[in-house]
């Protein structure tokens, strides 16, 4: 209990563990009982932006709620700063929660109170002396860029502004970590980008660890350092964002990194073999497909392609269909391999991919 480590504000990520989850299992009673979380073990480091991604119903919302014990675990333990949350008394837990800010998809602001009062209530709960409230509220609003909306009611604000108020409220008690439960899912892409940028700034400038739950790969790609993939209540993959993007291991991750919407199945109707090729920023300049046609005389069809920034690094990906000829197939694969392209072969049904073979 005594060994509280202070994190230097300048250092973004270190090896100091903030959360240590081991064998976390959550079963909801009822007929039949539902296993929302199944033996999840992971650790989250102080100062990082950690993403938890999964389809709806995968258990990620339950998982994030075990981090501030809004949900009790059925089995396993959640250790926050060296203390098992399960062992905390009601009073200690309330104190601990003031170290864990949380924002939600639905914002959950008090609609009958002004922005000022919404933040003030957090300070009141934390028992922060009244004479400090003014200064804290001003500082929080300036961080989230809403100083001019202090006396507005939530109904007078846009979705993005509401989420900014929620962030200000969550940060008012100076928490060490901010949990974000699908905080951008109700917002349009432009506003989502702005909110993610704000979270990034908070992480960088205030040293707040951020744990965010999302079903959108784009959100993870934009700001996360590491990511856990949850599928069917299980942790199926944990990796850096770049690694996950380049070579996803689990079925769930493979589905998520595909270039198009989830309902688009990138497979070829003529039964040709398809590859998913990933280029990082350095290779994107080379005309690979053109060169393949020019030098080898092999023509591949591009079924889908996009470029994106993953964790600050530019990436491109492409789904290509190989020519039906067996020799040309082999030559094309070895060409891509020689060129040092990350790639994998799409399954025939388009649902995920497997390692490529000659």
């Amino acid at each position: 209990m005594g060994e509280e480590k202070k994190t230097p504000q300048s250092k973004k990520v270190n090896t100091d563990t903030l959360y240590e989850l081991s064998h976390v299992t959550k079963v909801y009673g009822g007929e039949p009982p539902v296993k929302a979380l199944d033996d999840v073990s992971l650790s989250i480091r102080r100062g990082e932006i950690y993403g938890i991604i999964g389809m709806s119903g995968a258990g990620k919302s339950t998982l994030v709620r075990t981090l501030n014990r809004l949900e009790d675990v059925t089995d396993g333990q959640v250790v926050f700063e060296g203390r098992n949350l399960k062992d905390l008394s009601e009073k200690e837990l309330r104190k601990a929660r003031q170290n864990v800010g949380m924002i939600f998809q639905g914002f959950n602001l008090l609609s009958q109170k002004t922005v000022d009062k919404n933040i003030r209530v957090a300070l009141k709960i934390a028992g922060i002396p009244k004479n400090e409230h003014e200064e804290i509220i001003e500082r929080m609003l300036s961080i989230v860029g809403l100083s001019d909306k202090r006396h507005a009611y939530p109904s007078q604000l846009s979705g993005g502004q509401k989420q900014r108020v929620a962030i200000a409220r969550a940060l008012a008690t100076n928490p060490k970590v901010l949990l974000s439960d699908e905080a951008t899912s109700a917002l349009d892409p432009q506003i989502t980008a702005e909110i993610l940028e704000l979270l990034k700034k908070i992480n960088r400038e205030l040293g707040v660890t951020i744990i965010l739950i999302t079903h959108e790969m784009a959100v993870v790609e934009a700001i996360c350092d590491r990511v856990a993939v949850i599928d069917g209540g299980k942790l199926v993959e944990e990796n850096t964002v770049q690694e996950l993007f380049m070579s996803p291991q689990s079925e769930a991750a493979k589905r998520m990194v595909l270039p198009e919407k989830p309902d688009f199945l990138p497979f070829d109707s003529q039964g040709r073999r398809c590859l998913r090729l990933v280029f990082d920023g350095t290779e994107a300049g080379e005309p690979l497909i053109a060169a393949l046609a020019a030098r080898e005389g092999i023509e591949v069809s591009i079924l889908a392609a996009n470029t994106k920034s993953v964790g600050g690094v530019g990436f491109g990906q492409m789904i290509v269909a190989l020519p039906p000829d067996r020799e040309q197939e082999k030559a094309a694969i070895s060409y891509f391999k020689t060129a040092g392209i990350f790639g994998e072969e799409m399954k025939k049904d388009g649902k995920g991919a497997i390692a490529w073979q000659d």
Partner: protein
Amino acid sequence: MAGLNWTLIWEGFLQTMEMVIISTVIAYVIGLPLGIVLSITKKGGLAENRIVNTILGGIVNICRSIPFLIFLVVLIPLTRLIVGTSIGTEATIVPLTFGAVPIIARMVEASLEEVGSGIVEAARALGASKAQVVFLFILPEAVPSLLQGSAINCVTILGYSAMAGFIGGGGLGAIAYQYGFIRYQTDILLVTVVILIIIVWAVQELGLFAARRSRH
């Protein structure tokens, strides 16, 4: 209408207002906390407690099922105990209050239910105690709905107060019954009914206005 006894009607009006206002206030003092307890002790509530919820809910349901006229008669001994008499305006306040409490409790409970579970979750995530969740989050969020409900409850109590005339209570209801119905003084009946309509309309408008003003 020249011979109309306006003094009588004015007194009846004052008695009605006295009965309705005092019993509404007292009934809210009891019904509001009761509604809060009903809301937070139910399954999945903030302070889930099946025993408390079943007992209180049961009492509320029983009281609500008894027709108010019967309630008036049943409560006569209690009224005597509290007021010293079972006749008159003051005596009517007792059954009116007891009749209103369960209605108010359910209305309050319904208003609190309207507050989304997200608000409660946000409050708990901020480290709020149960009392803080109720008083800093749920109740302030429910204010517009509570105000609207209070106007409806007020009108219900006004309706009940008219029935009090049957057991010797005062007010406009008693006047309408004694003069208008028993003595066939149709003019008095009409006037009292018009006054009652105006009161109901005014209370309803006032409630809606207050709710609208408070809603953001």
